[in-house]
């Protein structure tokens, strides 16, 4: 063997050092990453415990019913009767408007909150000094299409509101204390960041499963995930939503009501001019009153009694001596 083929001491030590380093690194990584027991059951994500209370402490339970064919005028009259928008929105408030933008359907078909109400309400809030107005919903149909076709997106933006489409990062799990259904469930919490006032604006619609889709059912749009499993217990989920959400004000638009084929509608034949707009601080009472527009009573809609039982409001709307205004 030639001398060159022999390993000299220096080379041997160098080689041994490298081999040692490789072993050491391998051993180190293995020791750091060692997991003798394997993965256990998935740990539940930390959940929020609820939403802030947006109800005004001194507003009391108020209800106003306006009869008019012009919904924007109705809104104006209703707010006047309730003490003006200034009674609800103060300078510097950040207002979140939760609309019903569930379907990619034009305003004409009344399956979604009317864009005129969105723009007028935004305008009024900003006029009252609100620092910002946000509009949001988690539609059933494709969100971008739903906000575009319903006209709500355009109305909100042109009136100066910020439109928040549901993005994955906006949903965080929420567990409502003592609730049966809202347990570790993804809720559209992102848009609530920094918000000081919450206004719900919903149309009056027939709903085959629950009987009616109105102000309380509107909060369904705050749920994420495969929320439609809650249809198996629809009345409880609506009641729990009303319990979870304590709005500053709700507006229920029954200027045109969807009497049949709800909640999607799809034809003018499904609609009826009921020329009524209900606004108030008690969402249960608002819905109890709204039920009459669909030819129903509060007793026909189990979710109303359930929500009242949970303390979300009163089912006997007449007990609040509603202010009735003729437009």
């Amino acid at each position, binding site marked *: 063997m030639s001398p060159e083929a022999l390993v000299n001491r220096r080379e041997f030590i160098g080689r041994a050092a490298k081999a040692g380093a490789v072993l050491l690194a391998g051993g180190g990584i293995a020791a750091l990453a060692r997991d003798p027991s394997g993965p256990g059951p998935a740990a539940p994500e930390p959940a929020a415990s609820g939403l802030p209370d947006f109800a005004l402490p001194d507003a009391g339970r108020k209800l106003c019913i306006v009869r008019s064919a012009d919904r924007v005028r109705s809104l104006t009259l209703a707010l006047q009767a309730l003490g003006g928008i200034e009674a609800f929105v103060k300078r510097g408030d950040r207002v979140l408007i939760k609309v019903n933008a569930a*379907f*990619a*359907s034009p305003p004409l078909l009344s399956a979604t909150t009317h864009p005129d109400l969105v723009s007028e309400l935004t305008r009024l809030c900003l006029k009252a000094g609100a620092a910002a107005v946000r509009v949001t919903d988690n539609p*059933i*149909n*494709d*969100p*971008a*299409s739903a906000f*575009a*076709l319903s006209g709500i*997106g*355009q109305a909100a933006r042109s009136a100066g509101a910020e439109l928040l*489409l549901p*993005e*994955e990062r906006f949903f965080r799990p929420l567990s409502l204390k003592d609730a*049966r259904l809202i347990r570790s469930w993804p809720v559209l919490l992102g848009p609530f960041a920094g918000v000081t006032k919450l206004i719900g604006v919903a149309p009056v619609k027939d*709903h*085959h*499963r629950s009987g009616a889709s109105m102000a309380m059912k509107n909060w369904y749009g705050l749920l994420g995930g*495969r929320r*439609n*499993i809650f*249809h*198996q*217990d*629809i*009345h*409880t989920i609506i009641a729990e939503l009303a319990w979870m959400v304590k709005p500053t004000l709700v507006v229920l638009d029954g200027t045109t009501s969807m009497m*049949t*084929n709800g*909640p*999607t*509608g*799809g*034809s003018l*034949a*499904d609609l009826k001019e009921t020329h009524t707009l209900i606004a108030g601080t008690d969402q249960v009472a608002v819905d109890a009153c709204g039920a009459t527009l669909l030819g129903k009573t509060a*007793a026909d809609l*189990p*979710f109303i*009694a*359930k929500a009242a039982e949970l303390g979300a409001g009163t089912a006997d709307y007449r007990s609040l001596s509603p202010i009735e205004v003729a437009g």
Partner: protein
Amino acid sequence: MRIVTARRASQLFFFALFLWFCVAATLGERFWQLRGWPVNWLLDLDPLAGIATLLSTRTLYAGLLWGLATLALTVVLGRVFCGWICPFGAMHQFIGFLARRTRRLAVQVELNRFRPAQAVKYYLLAFFLAAALLLPREWMSSGSVQIGLLDPLCLAHRSVNLILLPLADRAGLGLAPLPRFYEGAGLIGAVFLCALLLNLWLPRFYCRFVCPLGALLGILSRFALWRIGRTEEGCTDCRRCERSCEGACTPTARIRIGECVMCLNCLDECRHDAIAYRTRPSAAGEALLPDLSRRGFVASAVSGLLAAPVLRLGGGAGPNWNAGLIRPPGALAEEDFLARCIKCGQCMRVCPTNVIHPAGLESGIEGLWTPKLNFRVGTSGCQHTCIACGHLCPTAAIRPISLEERTGRGGSAGRRPLRVGTAFVDRGRCLPWAMDKPCIVCQENCPVSPKAIFTREVFNPVRTGAPLAVTGTDGARLVLASAALEAHRFGTGDYHALLPGGLRLRIASNSADALDLERPLGGEEPPAPGSPVSILVRLQQPYVDPKQCIGCGVCEHECPVLGLRAIHVTAENESRSPHHRMVL
């Protein structure tokens, strides 16, 4: 400015334009979304799309006329399209350049040597064009357009639309509000990646050996008025020109005119003015094309001619049609559809709900990567007021239907909406049918009026173990003999108590041994102690009215039985084929 700088600028421009068009092919209100951007223009410029559909349909649809411009350009100036315009070519050239630039001159020259296998693309072209040829009726076959598998513009659009943009979105580009999915994306991505990585072996591998459009333009470039070639004197045989020859067309010796992609690198490299772009033929002689064998040509053309009739023997476009294949609204009947679709993925990109997906083998090998609807994926089924896909389809495989045609509104009375299929309730999986659970999410979301999904109400007895007996009543409260019930379970508003005499009252709440009814027993006789009471669950069971159902799949999308949906759309009764009609 050096001529190659101009070429690079042009390549960069068209590549950017291509990316821009892919990005813009979405619906929305933003400036970068569809608002008259000619997002199909590069596909329209592709004469292979035009010629293949011309052969298969004997018509040239709308924008495909632009292909003539490319033909004219090629006939006059050579394969300028390949070297200056084609965005896929630009990708290959760039990667190939990166891979070869550090190699020795001799190695680079060797990489860019002409190889006889460059003839393969001409055989592929012969196969694809023969397959597209519309045969007489007796052959039971319309043409089968398969160029989309390998056509560079179709492949590039498909890959960027279905692979790169969704990946970029996940990496934070944020174009789509929700992450997009495309079924079977793996294969499309693999083909794209292979095509690009082959450049590490040989520069412009795809262009030289595979590209059927390159072959078509290569054949046409024989007429080119101006062409690259060697001048009479000056050449020192240094072969620098061949170092960077993109087409591997041998400019120093007998140049292969059909292989020259007009990169003009040779012109730029030559320090002796021995290469020129001029009307005179090369002083070193010209060969128009690689040596094509008659045998090879006949074999590919004959197999192409036979491909469609043989594949159609499976009956997939006939009696053996796949009911699981839902085509987008406006798609032509299957045979006519396969005679047009170039698999470019534009419909899949523009679909606002991400419901259009590339098919696997649902429509046979022929239908690979053609559009189909997948209602499990996406944001909400196929929106019944959307007609975007047909208006983007560059070949009218999906017709540009009007909103009136889709919805059946307007126009003459009695018009029916367009149907892409029919929903079927799987009563073995549906919650109200099989599990005694109220649900009807499908009915709620059915978008047509009157709803195609309707319900019938039934009251089914609930399993409560031992029979229940009443011991007494107290107002609205029914006291039971045993404490056997789960508290609160029956207070959901869906449960009813059935009393002797057939009186049925809703249960408002319950404890272990009592039921609180919706109202006190009024005039009715209170049940005698010991008489039986049963608990019923009120169920609304869904049915589908095939006269109203349009197959939009919103019900299937929303069904809470997520794995295998309890309501499922199949292509039954789809409007596009009278043979698929199901009901009178």
